């Protein structure tokens, strides 16, 4: 398609401040039944099946007007206690701990070398001092903080070597305003160990308008506690689950998007041939309650075989906008290649199962239906079995009438247009481009959206605005940039569709399955502002919801690498909340993308600068390999 290479382009792009309307064309995808059934990558997920396991704690303490706090710190286990006080006072803070062993209080300041005082960088927040208190005595420690007057709030982030932890999960699928959202949690002696009984659990809900509400959780006979809250406002919400025992404290930080219930699916669905080849337009009945943004809609298409048994046909999904029908009925249209019906040998009655409508900004479940009848007003009985899955069946023929407009802060663009480029992409809340430009040659572009907190969808649309100034683009992405590139390729027609070369998307340190750190970093937003605050897509259950809409066909275009620390942790703070091996932000286990190409894990590299090992993106050898194999 392209044999000419343009001159190398290495252009930094600045984000303009004004939102501009951008037209995008959604891709509607289909996948074979084995991907949507139990165990498949597109099987419906419930957040209840994706609990967080936490062995650390983030204790929020409110200092008095003089900057003083006195309290009790429940500490279990033995060995080392790693603790980081985080506040606006930063290093101008004295933490005093007394484990009651008779050794007397230990006064911790940045000069306390005996307690392993070390500088700790918390991503996008700043530098603090962490301490490693060795050979401590478990129990109820007396703790105090002395900080400058007016410091306000501090967090004590800490973990011991005890295997005990907190298992917690959101169990409500739909997180909409006005409906109860339930969490369940239990403390355990170890990851698969028995429940710790003498523990009280509570949930602390931080609302989008800055309020904090503490809700006690009720324990059942099995030691599992549950609690719920009802959100009265849409937005990203933070829920901290706290488990308090006599000498045990654990917290887990959940981030979730709450949305207004502005679309409800129901009634049924109607399909007709769209007039473009074998494309079937399925209009899913919906009630419009003010929805103005696009949605991600996914469903399973089922039919009936010759013996009257239900037969799975395919999974369908993509971004779509609510459409007003001529008869006053609203619908969410999805296109699918009708040859899937021929392949399954199915006839009517047809049905859509597991219909899900998700808000792409947080992937919160807006509405859903376990099953709805599908009437097909077309002669599908004569559709021949193509014998195999044709490539064109996986992506429905694009329909111009499905295009919609999104408002974006479009990156400023100043370059020679029309080339075949490699796009270098950074991650969540990054300073800017991390990739050493000297490791990449040929036609390259640099995406730069510094210090920003974007959903995968927002990130992808910004990427699209840059990519579409070129004829074709491959991507090398760090961290969340990998999710954004995959999201763009999966859900929108873009310049990525035309890239040629071995590897379309190459990613490094990407949290495809989320990171427990997301919530903990977000929690610090109540001290340091929300510039890089809650991001539900990066949470563990949010990532699972996102991945449940990414077919293997799209995943197979991704080549991913992970790295991990050569020592116990990459970052003293994040190591409190991540499970080894990890890179300081992403656990290797959660950096995996099933269905994609795992290029391996490198030990001795961390996620970014300021960690215990060199940053992963400065590996010139890997960068050169990525450059040489990149599609453009």
């Amino acid at each position: 398609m392209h044999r000419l290479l343009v001159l190398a382009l290495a252009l930094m792009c600045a984000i303009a401040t004004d939102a501009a309307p951008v037209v995008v064309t959604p891709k509607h995808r289909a996948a074979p039944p084995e991907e949507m059934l139990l165990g498949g990558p597109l099987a419906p997920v419930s957040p209840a099946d994706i609990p967080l396991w936490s062995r650390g704690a983030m204790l929020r303490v409110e200092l008095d007007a003089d900057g003083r706090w006195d309290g009790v710190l429940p500490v279990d286990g033995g060995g080392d206690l790693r603790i980081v006080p985080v506040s606006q006072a930063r290093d101008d803070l004295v933490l005093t701990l007394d484990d009651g062993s008779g050794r007397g209080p230990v006064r911790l300041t940045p000069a306390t070398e005996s307690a392993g005082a070390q500088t700790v960088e918390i991503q996008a927040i700043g530098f603090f001092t962490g301490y490693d208190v060795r050979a401590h005595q478990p129990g109820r420690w007396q703790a105090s903080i002395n900080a400058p007057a007016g410091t306000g709030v501090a967090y004590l982030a800490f973990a011991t070597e005890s295997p005990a932890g907190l298992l917690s999960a959101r169990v409500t699928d739909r997180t909409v305003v006005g409906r109860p959202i339930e969490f369940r949690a239990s403390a355990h002696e170890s990851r698969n160990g028995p429940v710790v009984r003498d523990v009280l659990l509570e949930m602390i809900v931080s609302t989008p308008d800055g309020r904090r509400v503490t809700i006690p959780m009720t324990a059942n006979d099995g030691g599992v506690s549950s609690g719920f809250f009802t959100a009265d406002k849409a937005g990203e919400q933070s829920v901290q689950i706290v488990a308090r025992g006599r000498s045990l404290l654990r917290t887990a930080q959940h981030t979730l998007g709450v949305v207004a219930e502005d679309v409800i699916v129901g009634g049924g669905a109607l399909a007709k041939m769209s007039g473009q080849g074998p494309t079937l337009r399925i209009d899913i009945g919906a009630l419009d309650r003010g929805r103005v943004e696009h949605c991600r809609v996914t469903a399973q298409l089922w039919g009936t075989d010759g013996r009257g048994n239900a037969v799975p046909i395919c999974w369908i999904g993509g971004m779509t906008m609510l459409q007003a029908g001529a008869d006053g009925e609203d619908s969410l249209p999805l296109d699918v290649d009708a040859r899937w019906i021929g392949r399954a040998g199915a006839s009517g009655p047809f049905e859509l199962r597991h219909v899900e409508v998700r808000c792409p900004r947080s992937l919160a479940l807006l509405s859903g239906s376990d099953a709805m009848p599908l009437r097909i007003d077309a002669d599908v009985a004569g559709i021949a079995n193509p014998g195999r899955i044709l490539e064109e069946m996986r992506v429905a023929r694009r329909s111009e009438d499905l295009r919609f407009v999104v408002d974006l802060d479009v990156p400023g663009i100043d370059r020679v247009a029309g080339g075949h480029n490699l796009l270098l992409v950074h991650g969540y809340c990054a300073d800017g481009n991390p990739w050493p430009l000297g490791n990449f040659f040929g036609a390259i572009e640099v995406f730069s959206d510094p210090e920003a907190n974007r959903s995968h969808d927002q990130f992808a649309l910004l990427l699209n605005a840059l990519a579409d100034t070129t004829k074709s683009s491959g991507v090398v992405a760090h961290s969340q940039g990998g999710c954004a590139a995959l999201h763009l390729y999966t859900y929108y027609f873009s310049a990525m569709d035309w890239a040629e070369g071995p590897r379309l998307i190459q990613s490094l340190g990407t949290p495809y399955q989320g990171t427990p750190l997301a919530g903990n970093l977000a929690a610090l937003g109540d001290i340091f502002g929300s510039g890089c605050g809650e991001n539900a897509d990066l949470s563990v259950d949010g990532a699972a919801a996102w991945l449940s809409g990414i077919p293997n066909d799209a995943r197979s275009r991704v080549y991913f690498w992970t790295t991990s620390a050569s020592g116990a942790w990459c970052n003293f703070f994040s190591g409190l909340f991540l499970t080894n091996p990890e890179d300081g932000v992403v656990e290797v286990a959660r950096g995996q993308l099933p269905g994609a190409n795992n290029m391996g894990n490198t030990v001795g590299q961390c996620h970014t600068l300021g960690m215990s090992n060199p940053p992963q993106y400065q590996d010139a050898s890997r960068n050169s390999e990525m450059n040489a194999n990149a599609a453009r």
Partner: protein
Amino acid sequence: MPLADRMIACTVGALVTASASADLVQCSSASLPIPDGSSSASVVLTVPPDAVGTVQGVTVSVDVAHEWLGDLTISVSHGGQSAILIDRVGIGTWSFGCGGDDIDATFTDAATASADALCSPGGPSPMFFGEILPTESLGVFTGSSVAGNWTITVTDHNLIDAGVVNSVCISITTDAVPCNGDVTGDGAVDLADLNLVLASFGQTTTQGDADGSGEVDLADLNLVLGQFGADC
């Protein structure tokens, strides 16, 4: 016309007879580079001025090698009329249009597939093949005189990807009466033709062999009688 534009003029052609009407097929197979970036390559096919009849239908066959079909507009013009065959396919979905390679297709109003429908990432090469519905109807030429220049213009609107016109053919259906009964070649089917057939009747010869069978027989006699009185 910009200096960078290229043009090939072609006057060769072939006249093929048919039973009810005539198809005039003009082709050029000279390789013509398409200048990159808002420039054009034109192929001019000239139908001799002594060709008679008016246009009843037109199809255009195009063989183009190009690495980014969304760059291209292809049109055909004749006698002050023009029709666009393709016009930057895929623009609107992709910023730079369809990224497919190559065309080996016949544009005809009788086709059902549009070039837009054939454009698909990962699709075949040539991406545009078979019979394709032109962007604008070729019926615009219906009723015009067949004689004169037929110009096929290929314009590349963008930099980066380049290509070449390998061949073009234009096939014109006219209302001219077929004249294979004019065995004397004097421009009319008349008594002289009838006499020649009768003189050669029953012989193996080209003289008076109206249907080209090698023999002068009843079929030749019927042809001459059927077209008797026609001006060719």
